[in-house]
């Protein structure tokens, strides 16, 4: 595969000499290098900002000078101060940390070579997936190691507030963006001009997480398009010949903050990012996190992506500092797809799929029989490979040992007990005598949500076939048209949960049919789709795979329609109230044994249901969904 374990070399030679290595990368050919302060100066003096300053000064009672001063302060708060010395310091520290945390960090050399080429040709945007805090500096570390210009990185402002660490990050190339900018015109203007200046000048590769937020559930998060807009604009307005996007997939065997994420999903808020918090987290650093996989995807030329899809001359009639909008969705979604294709799945993710299909009560009490877990996982491995997954399955080790090592690595979630594997629940704090029933539910939920997150790592492999399987099972139909209609309906409902390219339903459906046929689960003709004898097993696995999502949606729909609307006649509740109310509703259902799906407790799903309801709109639609969801239950 041409993959290299970058830790291997670090284990053989000194970290200090690595940190002090000669660093002379080939930069972007067009522009002579400029300093971080030049960059800020150019930003402030840009035509666009001058234009916006004037507008703001006219709208408010401020003078031009005051507006400019405000902008200068914003820029000061925002700007990076990339310095080689700090990159070296970071390199040294990360060598130490990574060696402790990970057994291997694999990097695909082919992708790295393509990146090296691309950086000389045009401004490069690095777009990694965001599943862990570790994502933040790993790219810089790899690029430093391979003599490629280190990026400037878009980061959340809270990081800047961390004593010392904030400054170190800043000097390692981070620039900081406020979390909620809202309608602050000046801020938007300064930020976008800063980003665009970086792109225009080819100052350094620009790294940002297109998902905006770290994914709490390890599945792709809907993109934040604001940043994408800023990054693409210089191309659309002809200020650069082309822009290269490099999707990067960072896959983890075990995610550093797994339990933290599960807690957050259950409504226990994220701790504020402080330096003290970081040191507290050092306990986390004592553990083993398996391997990490950094896959640099095929560089995408924005020029090629947009060819024939956009008419650039539409911007010819206004001065280029005037704001315009254009397609960025397509570009973003293409990046997502490549990120997904480039991500690696660990055996553990498949095990999580299997475990989640076992009744929760079995998991928490007696546990799942080891041989069954093993057989099912190996069966699933075959299916995943058939569906085109990138699996990271150690070759020289027996399957038995591979799976055993996974259980060992994930001792925070599962434990071996005799010939069974059961769920590990959080220890009860000693001072507490008895937990309430609700707290018991939460204890189980933490582990279940962690499992669900690892299952989500292989979501993109199974999602489309699973939707098809569900549709086949629910409609009991073999008519292709009917299946397709229902498939589209399902896709529409779940469009906030999963990322689909709008208008590509036919392709999604075809892809699902093709994969299912390819593994022998279905036969299809232009009119009909039939499940084969052997395919029953696949269909029922896939249905069960996606079931937690569908169940969660049903439960919440039921809540919204029956409880919220019909009984209380209250159709106006805040989001926070909604979360609380739904949560206690779900807990009740779980306690009564009516519901097995702990994922319904996840604030992520709750949020998605809410936005699905919002986009689908009227009550009439709700009724329709409700009827359909009853259908789904049957």
């Amino acid at each position, binding site marked *: 595969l041409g993959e290299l374990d970058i830790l291997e070399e670090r284990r053989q030679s000194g970290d200090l000499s690595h940190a002090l290595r000669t660093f002379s990368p080939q930069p972007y050919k*067009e522009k*002579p290098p400029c300093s971080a302060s030049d960059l800020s100066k150019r930003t402030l003096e840009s*035509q666009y900002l001058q234009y916006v300053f004037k507008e703001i000064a006219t709208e408010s009672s401020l003078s031009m000078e005051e507006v400019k001063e405000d902008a200068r302060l914003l820029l000061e708060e925002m700007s990076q101060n990339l310095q080689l010395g700090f990159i070296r310091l970071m390199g040294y520290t990360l060598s130490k940390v990574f060696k402790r945390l990970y057994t291997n960090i694999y990097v695909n050399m082919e992708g790295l070579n393509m990146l090296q080429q691309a950086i000389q040709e045009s401004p490069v945007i690095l777009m990694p997936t965001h599943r862990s805090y570790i994502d933040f500096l790993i790219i810089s570390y790899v690029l430093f190691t391979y003599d490629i210009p280190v990026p400037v990185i878009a980061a959340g402002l809270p990081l800047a507030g961390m004593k010392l660490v904030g400054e170190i990050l800043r000097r390692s190339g981070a620039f900081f963006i406020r979390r909620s900018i809202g309608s602050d015109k000046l801020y938007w203007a300064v930020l976008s001009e800063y980003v665009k200046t970086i792109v225009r000048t080819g100052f350094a590769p620009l790294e940002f997480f297109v998902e905006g937020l770290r994914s709490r559930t390890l599945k792709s998060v809907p993109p934040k398009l604001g940043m994408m807009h800023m990054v693409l604009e210089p191309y659309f307005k*002809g*200020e*650069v*010949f*082309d822009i290269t996007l490099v999707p990067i997939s960072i896959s983890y065997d075990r995610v550093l903050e797994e339990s933290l994420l599960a807690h957050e999903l259950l409504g226990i808020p994220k701790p504020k990012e402080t330096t003290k918090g970081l040191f507290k987290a050092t306990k986390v650093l004592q553990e083993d996190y398996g391997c990490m996989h950094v896959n640099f995807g095929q560089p995408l030329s924005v020029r090629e992506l947009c060819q024939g899809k956009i*008419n*650039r*001359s539409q*911007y*010819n009639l206004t*001065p*280029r500092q005037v704001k315009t909008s254009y397609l960025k969705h397509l570009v973003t979604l293409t990046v997502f797809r490549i990120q997904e294709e480039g991500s690696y799945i660990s055996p553990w993710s498949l095990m999580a799929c299997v475990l989640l299909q076992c009744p929760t009560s079995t998991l928490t009490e007696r546990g799942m029989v080891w041989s069954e877990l093993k057989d099912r996982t190996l069966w699933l491995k075959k299916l995943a490979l058939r569906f085109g997954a990138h699996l990271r399955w150690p070759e020289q080790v027996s399957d038995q040992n591979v799976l055993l090592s996974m259980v060992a690595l994930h001792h925070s979630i599962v434990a071996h007990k005799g010939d069974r594997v059961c769920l590990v629940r959080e220890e009860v704090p000693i001072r507490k005598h008895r937990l309430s029933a609700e707290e018991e539910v939460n204890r189980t939920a933490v582990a279940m949500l962690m499992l669900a997150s690892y299952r989500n790592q292989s979501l993109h492999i199974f999602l489309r076939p699973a939707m098809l399987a569900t549709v086949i099972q629910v409609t009991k139909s073999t008519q292709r048209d009917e299946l397709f209609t229902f498939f589209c309906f399902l896709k529409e409902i779940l469009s906030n949960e999963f990322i689909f390219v709008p208008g590509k339903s036919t392709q999604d459906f075809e892809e699902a049919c093709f994969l299912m046929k390819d593994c022998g689960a279905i036969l299809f003709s232009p009119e009909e789709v039939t499940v084969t004898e052997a395919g029953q097993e696949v269909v029922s696995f896939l249905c069960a795979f996606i079931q937690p999502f569908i169940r969660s949606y049903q439960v919440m729909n039921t809540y919204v329609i029956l409880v919220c609307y019909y009984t209380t006649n209250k159709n106006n509740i805040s989001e926070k109230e909604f979360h609380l109310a739904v949560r206690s509703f779900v807990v009740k259902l779980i306690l009564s044994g009516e519901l097995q799906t702990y994922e319904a407790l996840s604030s992520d799903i709750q949020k998605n249901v809410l936005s699905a309801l919002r986009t689908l709109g009227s009550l009439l639609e709700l009724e329709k969904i409700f009827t359909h969801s009853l259908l789904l239950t049957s």
Partner: protein
Amino acid sequence: MKWNGWGYSDSRFLFNKKGQAEFTGKRYRLSGMIIPGLKDWMEGTFGASLQHKAPATPILNSTAVQPATINEAFVEEVKATTIPFSVEAEDRVFRAHGHCLHEIFALREGKIGRVPDMVVWPSCHSDVVKIVELASKHNVCLIPYGGGTSVSSALECPPEETRSIVSLDTSQMNRILWIDEKNLTAHVEAGIVGQDLERLLNESGYCTGHEPDSMEFSSLGGWVATRASGMKKNIYGNIEDLVVHVKMVTPRGVIEKSCQGPRMSTGPDVHHFIMGSEGTLGVVTEVTLKIRPMPEYQKYGSVVFPNFEQGVACLREVAKQVCAKSLSCFFWHALKPQVSSIFTSFLDGLKKFYITKFKGFDPNRLCVATLLFEGDREKVLQHEKQVYDIAAKFGGLAAGEDNGQRGYMLTFVIAYLRDLGMEYYVIGESFETSVPWDRVLDICRNVKARIIRECKDKGVQFPPLSTCRVTQTYDAGACVYFYFAFNYRGLSDPIHMFEQVEHAAREEILANGGSLSHHHGVGKLRKEWMRETVSDVGLGMLKSVKDYVDPNNIFGNRNLL
């Protein structure tokens, strides 16, 4: 004149027995001179070699020319008028093309497509009226021909045309009919060639100041029909600023205004249907032009800039100021040292100067602007100083009068250079656009990059020459020329490939806010973009004018629409 290349038969570049480049003849300042750097430049830039020649077919083989489709009735009536005409193959082929690369390339290969079936030489306005009447009567297709310097495929005969095609050559209509010294106007027949017009006016102490690069060969009627522009337009104006009155013969009759008022508010200006009509509506026969007394004082100059960006910034600044009003200026991008040997050896000294003065200075990014000031002596000197002061602010250094003059001369001989290239498997073309100031640098970068990328994708072995220059400045923008050439050895269909790249470059120009053309016109080469350029309604307006003026498509060259 050459039948398959640019300009006079006695003037051309060649490599002499010693392998040195030389320019033959006696007509130009460069004539008879040895150009030492040219060989290295050809070899270095294109990977061309003196060993590999692609010689042209030496003489026209008249059997390769399709027999003429003669409209007998028309010919009979033309004979009766005594207007001279010809059906000789050579006369017909000569008027079947302009100077696009594909046209010249085909001639060099001896390939002849559809050509006019007959050539007529009217000698005055009333001759033209007769011919147009006869053509309408007998349904003959007329294509007006002036100097034949078109670079938009405007003179190509539409291959689908089945009627007899008659080339209407205006070259015999070349008199200045009168000069009005009170109003400073001259009434001139439209077939007159630029250099003759200027020479004749000079004899009376006047000039028009209209000097397109093609002025040795292009005609007044052609300028009007294509909306031409000259290099001294900052001082004298473009053709639309110079024209006071026009007479055009159309199948509907003669169009002209009733007076010579310097400006009129009488609805849309009908002159603007004529200017840029590219021979689709009729033949321009007589034009009244503004003239000026010959300038009291002329001074050349040149400035060298450390890079293109600084140079463009300087031009923009100059364009804002009054001093631009007496200045003509072209701006050359990145003259590689070998080409600069055409200029004197001032470069070496400059390099030393820049290296000590500017950090990160790269001699390969050096740019030259050549300047020409005209007017009364005092103003010229004052404006000259202003311009050099501005240039200094942008790192520009005065590089002498002599170099300025050489730069001017270069614009006339550059077309000859393409013929030399073709002898050695190098094909090239220049094309132009106009663009707002803020996009000048972006369009230059993007179009050049697009050309290089397209060539690479299409498998051109040697990297192409892809460069540009700013040739005109306006208040709101500039005219930019692109030069594109490459070595085509090893390519099976170089012309097709070349056209694809040129097409891509034009798309890039349009996408970057550039116009379809600044002064070359649309012809048939660029007409696919007319609709997006002038909008549906705009195109409809032009079509309805055509439909009214020429319902039977007598002027059937199919340009523009």
